């Protein structure tokens, strides 16, 4: 076995995993703060990327477009809180989950209604080509864009970790996630908190949308990256930001390695579903995921 080839596959996989983590982060945020599994996260990613790319194509400055899109995502988050979540306070989680499935289709429809349904190309100024230095020196091909995405994800996670651990709002977020009634009793404004979480999730969706859009083009199928985040969540745990990162890395690495080394034995094409196999195996060992909260009920 060629070692440098192995390293190349592994590194490529890990970096692709970071892209999954970016999407998974959005799920984790909302789940952590409101106990809702937001099925619409993929649609939010699509909506963000489509809005950004459409604005840029209409001649808007990229930074301005970024700001406008971010504002749009925050407004979207506030609207979702007001129209969908607030009337459903204290309903069982499955009701909220179904509501987010509905939301998915509404969002997909709306974004295509507003911006049209043709695919767009998105250029972020970082080419998706192997880095020359690494190729020449070690004969390992690693994409510049992948490294860039990993860097962005790293910064994002750092910011979120500080936000959750160090600020009053972060503490309030965790409190709301644990117990609505108790949170109200200590004077935490439930509605504000949800608005903030959905706003932040919108921001994460925007980042994920830009990265995925630059890689695969901005098109309807972008909503399906959400499905790739599911095995990541199963492995990392639904409540954990570090879990989402580590889960993404594991999924990315194993599916690439499996495709390259196991693929040829079964005729290839296992990359697209191998992640789910890994997640299922993982579930058998640790049903709550690596960093998920283990619920022990006192009897």
């Amino acid at each position, binding site marked *: 076995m060629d070692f440098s080839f192995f390293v190349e596959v592994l590194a490529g996989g890990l970096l692709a995993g970071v892209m999954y983590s970016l999407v998974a982060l959005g799920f984790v945020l909302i789940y952590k703060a409101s106990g809702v599994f937001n099925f619409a996260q993929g649609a939010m990613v699509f909506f963000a990327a489509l809005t950004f790319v459409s604005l840029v194509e209409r001649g808007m400055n990229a930074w301005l477009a970024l700001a406008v899109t971010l504002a749009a995502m925050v407004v979207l988050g506030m609207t979702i809180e007001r129209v969908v979540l607030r009337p459903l306070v204290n309903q069982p989680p499955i009701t909220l989950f179904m509501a987010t499935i509905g939301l998915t289709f509404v969002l997909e429809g709306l974004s295509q209604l507003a911006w049209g349904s043709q695919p767009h190309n998105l250029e972020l100024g970082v080419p998706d080509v192997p880095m020359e230095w690494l190729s020449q020196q070690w004969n390992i091909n690693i994409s510049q864009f992948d490294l860039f995405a990993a860097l962005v994800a790293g910064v994002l996670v750092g*910011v979120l970790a*500080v*936000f959750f651990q*160090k*600020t*009053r*709002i*972060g*503490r*309030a977020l*965790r*409190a709301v*996630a*644990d*117990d609505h*009634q*108790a*949170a*109200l*009793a*200590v*004077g*935490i*404004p*439930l509605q504000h908190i949800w608005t903030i979480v959905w706003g932040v999730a919108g921001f994460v969706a925007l980042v994920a949308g830009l990265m995925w859009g630059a890689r695969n083009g901005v098109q309807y199928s972008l909503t399906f990256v959400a499905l790739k985040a599911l095995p990541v969540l199963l492995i990392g745990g639904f*409540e954990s930001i570090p879990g989402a990162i580590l889960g993404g890395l594991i999924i990315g690495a194993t599916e690439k390695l499996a495709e390259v080394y196991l693929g040829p034995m079964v005729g290839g094409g296992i990359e697209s579903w191998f992640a789910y196999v890994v997640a299922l195996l993982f579930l058998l060992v640790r049903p709550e995921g690596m960093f998920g*909260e283990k619920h*022990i009920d*006192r009897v």
Partner: protein
Amino acid sequence: MILSVENVSLSFGGVKALQDVSFDVEAHEVRAIIGPNGAGKSSMLNVINGVYRPQHGKILFKEKAFKEMDSRQAARMGIARTFQNIALFKGMTVLDNIMTGRNLKMRCGFLQQALWIGPAKREELEHRRAAEEIIDFLEIQHIRRTPVGRLPYGLQKRVELGRALAAEPELLLLDEPMAGMNLEEKQDMCRFILHVNDHYGTTLVLIEHDMGVVMDISHRVVVLDYGRKIADGVPAEIRSNQKVIDAYLGVAH
């Protein structure tokens, strides 16, 4: 007079939880609400806390009437509470739980807090000191970093009291603070309650089933039965009140 409950009636559909109940609470007093199961004690506490809105009557807190309000507003006005079935943030540590109690007192924006600059740092340290004082007072130093979900019941009750105290409330509502505790834990809890009343001057309204405890620590007692007030007075009066004895022991019809 810090709190006055006037002719409050509350019903859920056909069930009349409270019927025309009136009583008052003096500032710095320990006021107990007692009664057999289903008498409406917790409903009464929830009305005061703004969880339920009574169909009739009103609540005056510090001379201000409120009819439309929720628990969050109650918290802002200086009412804190504990719950009958412990409502702590189970995934968070004892310290973090107590810090949430100080949430309303924090003023710095989250950007300042995230960057940990000047005023935010000072503020956090100040609140941290207040939280540590409460931890010392409740003798839970050894578990301050433990996630609350792992603690035994008695300690959870204590942490919940700590979170309520962290808000520095003027009025503290305790819903069965000693339920499910052994004798020693009850004695500790009594000591804490009396100290809070004595030291911080906090007014307390508490629901409790242990008559010995109620008679020992409360200044005045309200007795509810089937949603109606049947007696109100100092412990000695209540103990000898025939209606109260009947309600608790039952009477031959």
